[in-house]
Every structure is written in C-alpha cells, then in structure tokens.
C-alpha cells in the first residue's frame, strides 16, 4: 500500500492511498458514482472537478479521472453545468463571422481576464480560441479548440457567461463541413458504389469457399 493522504470530499475528510486519482479515491472512500463519471480516461468531460489545496487560496479545476490526489485537497465535483447550447441547422448556416454574432453574441463581451484558459483541464488557450471566433477565424478557432472535451470548467469561471465549448464546436463543424477542402477521391468512390461498380465483385467474394478466402487473405499484397 502506498502512502495515505488526507483529502476532503465535499468538505468531509477521508484517508486514501496517495497514488489514486480523485475518481478512484472517491470510490475507495465508498462513493458510488453516477454523475461526474463517464469514460474514466480523459475523453468525455463528465468528471469536471474543482479543488483547492489546504492553505492555498487558489481554486483549481481538473478532470477527476486524470488527476492524482494530493494531501489536503478539498474536492467538489461539478455534476452538471448549464452550458448554453444554441440550436441551428448545419445545412442552413454559412461559415461567416455573422453566424457567431447571431448564435453566440456574448463572446463579444469577453473582458480578457483569461480565467477560461487558466481553468482549462486540457491546457488549451481558451481565450485565444474565443478571440479567433470573434474575428470569424474559424480554422484557427477549430485548431486551437480541437482537444476540448467540453468539461465546462472554462464556462464555470467566465464572468462574461460564455459557453466556450459550444463556440469551439460550432467553429469546428463549420470548418469540417464548409471550409476544409472537399475530398474528391471520397466523392468519386461514393458515386462508383452508388452506380453499382462493385456489386458483382462483392457478391463474388461473398460466395467464395473459406479455403479460397484463406488463400487470398494469406497471400494478399500489403501496401508499404
């Protein structure tokens, strides 16, 4: 057993092994999680957590599944945060600066405090991607926000009440659909399949006996 540390879940003290994550330490302490627990591997953003180390006034944010416990840690998970997602039809909007103004006008109220960036559990430059969104620079916004897991810690801390993950998501969808260059070889292949170019070949291979399939598989050429 590794060294035990004292942590405080919702203000209540527990002694837990020091090599655990906040999430596994809560379970060690006896909590059965439903809210505040999703993929457990840092991809879904369900376990947004706020903490402070005893004796230090700094409020910190993290993902409970990715953060190791520390002695004197006061922990509160954020079970849900009312992020403000606006609805739209992706087919009807255009990738212009106008669309951000219409859907997320509050981004122009950003006061530049950088609290969002400091709160980001993925170490993204959140304030920067909001700035790109303000200017309609959607590719830059998309790139800068790409690793966002939408935990919402940025929005929790924002004095301008911006829903940052939603802004990044809109920018990325606009880039994916409208701004990134079209893929000609993909369009061509979809069209070939639609016209039935592979129908005979696929039927034939489906009918082949297993012995012949084994031979074909074991001797197939592999692209370097």
């Amino acid at each position, binding site marked *: 057993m590794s060294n035990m540390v004292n942590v405080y879940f919702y203000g209540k003290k527990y002694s837990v092994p020091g090599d655990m994550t906040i999430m*596994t330490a809560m379970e060690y302490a006896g909590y059965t*999680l439903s809210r505040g627990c999703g993929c457990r591997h840092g*991809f*879904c953003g369900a376990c947004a957590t706020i903490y402070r180390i005893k004796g230090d006034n700094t409020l910190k944010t993290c993902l409970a599944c990715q953060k190791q416990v520390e002695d004197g840690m006061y922990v509160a998970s954020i079970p849900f945060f009312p992020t403000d997602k606006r609805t739209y039809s992706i087919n009807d909007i255009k990738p212009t600066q106008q669309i951000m103004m219409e859907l997320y006008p509050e981004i122009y109220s950003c006061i530049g405090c950088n609290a969002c960036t400091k709160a980001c559990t993925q170490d993204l430059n959140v304030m920067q991607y909001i700035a790109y969104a303000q200017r309609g620079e959607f590719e830059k916004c*998309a790139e800068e926000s790409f690793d966002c897991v939408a935990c919402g810690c940025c929005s929790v801390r924002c004095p301008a009440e911006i829903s940052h993950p939603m802004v990044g998501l809109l920018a990325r969808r606009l880039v994916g659909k409208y701004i990134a260059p079209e893929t000609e070889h993909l369009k061509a292949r979809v069209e070939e399949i639609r016209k039935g170019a592979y129908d005979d070949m*696929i039927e034939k291979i489906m009918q082949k006996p297993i012995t012949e399939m084994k031979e074909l598989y074991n001797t197939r050429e592999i692209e370097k």
Partner: protein
Amino acid sequence: MFTSEMRESIKKVEQTRAERMKTEPERMTAEEKDALLKAFHPDYRADGFAEIKVGPNKGQKAPKELTELLHSNSILLSENIDLSKIDYDCDVLVIGGGGAGASAAIEADEAGAKVVMVTKLRIGDANTMMAEGGIQAADKENDSPVQHYLDAFGGGHFAARPELLKRLVMEAPDAIKWLNELGVMFDKDEDGRMVTTHGGGTSRKRMHACKDYSGAEIMRNLRDEVLNRNIPVVEFTSAVELIKDDKGQVAGAVLLNMETGDYLVAKAKTVVIATGGAGRLHYQNFPTSNHYGATADGLVLGYRLGAPLLYQDTIQYHPTGVAYPPQLFGALVTEKVRSLGAMLVNKDGEAYAHPLETRDVSASAIIRECAEGKGVDTPQGKGVWLDTPMIEILGGEGTIEKRIPAMLRMYLNYGIDMRKEPILVYPTLHYQNGGLEIGGDGFTKAISNLLVAGEAVGGIHGRNRLMGNSLLDIIVFGRNAGKAAAAKSRTVEIGTMNLDHISAYADELKKAGIDTGKTSPMLLPKYARHER
C-alpha cells in the same frame, strides 16, 4: 517516474533502436498465428468461460461474468409495473446514447419518425467518445470495398456474417461522407485528400482519423446534431427491461431513473438496442479501456426477450493498454501509435513481432513475452515497451504532438514524455466481438420490430475486429437501424403490453436449478469500497 528496473530496460531499448529501425520485423505465417492464439489468447482459457444453461444459446459458452448476468433474474421480477401509465410514446425508441444510438436517432428523425433516446449516463458517455485511432473506409484509388472485405474477413478468422460485412464495407465511404458533411474534421492534406494510415491487419492505408480524438470528434458532432434536431434525450435513465405485446412484438421498455430510483414506461413501435459493450464486466480480471457504463445491458435485455447471441465467446483485448503508471492502468494507447511507426519491444530490447499484426495476435504475443520472462515488472503486473521515440525519428520532430496529442497529454500528466522515452503497455479488455444476432437489414431474427446497432451486435466482424471497423460499424449500422426502424414503425400496431417473459425466464432458471442471487442488467460496475 520510471523505476530503476524500468530505466535499465529502457537503456536496452535505446541501444537496439538504430539497428531495429533498419528492418521491418517479419509477419507471422497463418500457422504461427494459430499456434500463438491457442497458447496465449484469453479466449482460449477454458476457465474464463461457463456454459449458458437457459435461453436461445443454451449449451454454448460465454465469459463467466456474462453468463452470470444471463443466469440472473430481472430487476423487475418482484416489482409491479403499471404498463397502462405511459411516460413516453414514440415510433422509435433508441436505447443508448453512443455513436450507434445517435446515428440511429438522427436518421430516424430525418425519416420523419417520432424518436426518443434514453441513455444510462449522458449522451456521448460511450466507447465511441474514447475511440482514438480512426475509422476505415476504402475510398482511395488503390483500394476497394472488396479489398476491405478481404482484410476484415481474414482478420476476423473468416467468421463474419457475409451479409453484414458487405454492408459494412460497401457503405463505408458514404459513412465518411455523411460524417464530413455533418462537420467532422478529418485529417486532410491541402488538396482535401484524406491522410490515411495502416491499422493492424489492413492491406491498404485506409484509416481515416481526426488526430487521436477520432471518436470524440465524431461523437460530439453526432451529439450536437441530435440536440439541434430537438430529439428528446432522456439522460441518466436506463432501460431495465423490454416490454412485449400479445403479438410477440417488442413494445417499448421499462426505464429506471438512475437518480431517483423511479420506474417509467416507454411505449414504442420499434426499439433499437444500441447499448454498446461489456468492458466493465472485467472478464478474466482484465482492466478495460471502456467507459463506465459498458456492462452488456442490451445483451441481457435482448436475450431475456428471446433474441439469440452470436460469438458471445469472443472478446477483443487491445494489445496496448497502459501498463504504467498505475493511475492510467488499462487506458487505451491507440493503435495509431504503431501505425505511425512505433515498434513493440520486450525487456531485452528485442522487436519480437511485427507491430501491425491483428489485435488478437498482437495481444497474444505480448502476453507470451510477459509469461516467458521478457516483460518488465510493473506495480499491477507486467508490460512490454512501445518504442514511441521512433515516431519522432521517422516522422520528424513534432509528429507526436500533431498526430497523437491525447496520448502525449495523458502521459505528460504523469511526467512521462513519450517523445523521448518509450511507454509500457499490456493488453486491456477493449471490445466484445459478439453480441445480439441481426440480419443484413438490422433486425433481430427472433423479434420482428427489434433492431440492434453498434457494439451490441454480433457477427459483423467475426471472431476478431480490425482497428477502425468499429467506429465504422456504429455509423453504418446505426444509420441503417434508424432508417429501417422509422420505415418499420409505419406498419406496426402495438397490441396489449406485458412483461410475461420476465416470469417465464425466472421459471426457466428455476427449472435449470440456477440461482445466482443477483439481478440483471448490471447498469453500473460496483467500484465503491465499503468497509462494512
């Protein structure tokens, strides 16, 4: 962060690197692969399995933990549920909020059906969100759906259902196009050509990716689209039993509010089971790369209603789960790390196998190395090296940050810089190859208006799945299920609803002399430690 024993071994990895990089390790012959699998793959460990004693697959084997769930009674056995009080009434009930469920919901909505999605946690809390490496589709000039079929069929040990595999490969390019048009940002070059790589067992570079957030990027687009369409999504609400009618059709589901403990009734003309995998059952005590809710609920629900399983005895262990540090134990290290050039290397610095064998072969080879004293000791077991600095040498400095940022971030969090040092890996429970049996049209054969999509389906991949074919299957079969369910719902008339199958199943268990003392589905794994 590494122990001194690990540091000693890293020196050997570094010493052999230049020499190793001069040649590609040989691929195994078919005979060598068969022998390796039989000796070391967990599917061949008889003590990991038990015989199913009741239901359509009676007499067949399944993992012990799954068999126990199938041998347990319904949560509702002693409950009195009033089916006349209907909380949700819809054309298409989608159970599960992952990639397959979301795709089904979008297509059913597009077809004009009234859709309700119920999900145990949140929409997007699913294995889809965690898929890192990519999605296959034969859309390049040197490739074809037929070549894709051959790779997947052989990689799955020639056991895939041809009508399912045909749909998978033939509809793959359209799936990519559909995702792209939703707004998914695939990795492309300046001319719009997809940046594609190999996966284990592929003969063409057809792995499309969104950095190493491929599944997350797909899932967040699907989720956003479901929400934009105002499709009702009932979160933290589990389906705990399917409802039948007097015509033998499925008629909806009994739901459990996970927070209040209250039961609800959803009536539906068609039901899509899209509940995903089973990693949290921890077969044979393996750690898992799966999300918190992966407990095979849909398999249990479908089976109790009379839908047969297929290949429920084959499980995928992803070769490269995190073996160290302990906080990340079992987390996925994407296969893309090997696609980009990293070799698997044992304690002595030897590249003992080709890095891109299929997953079952690759996992078995790691287990063999560790069993034969060529693994590195870790606090939770053993592991072998994945020589990640090779990626930077091969692709140039910055390749790791650009192509696999999630991996870099995950390790840096614990003081390990994978650009400079190799990482330790061991197989992790990743995917259920088997599941509920469906026909090419997506419907179960036993119940005419019950569909299954995604990881809950068995037979698409056979007895092993290739990287990138799961993200593909959730889209292809999810979309298909949504369209088919919407069309079917126009002709379905639901009769008198009942839950008679619950007591019938209980009788069958009693007759077989089985009493596990538990109920199923499991819903969530029991991780909370209680001192008394």
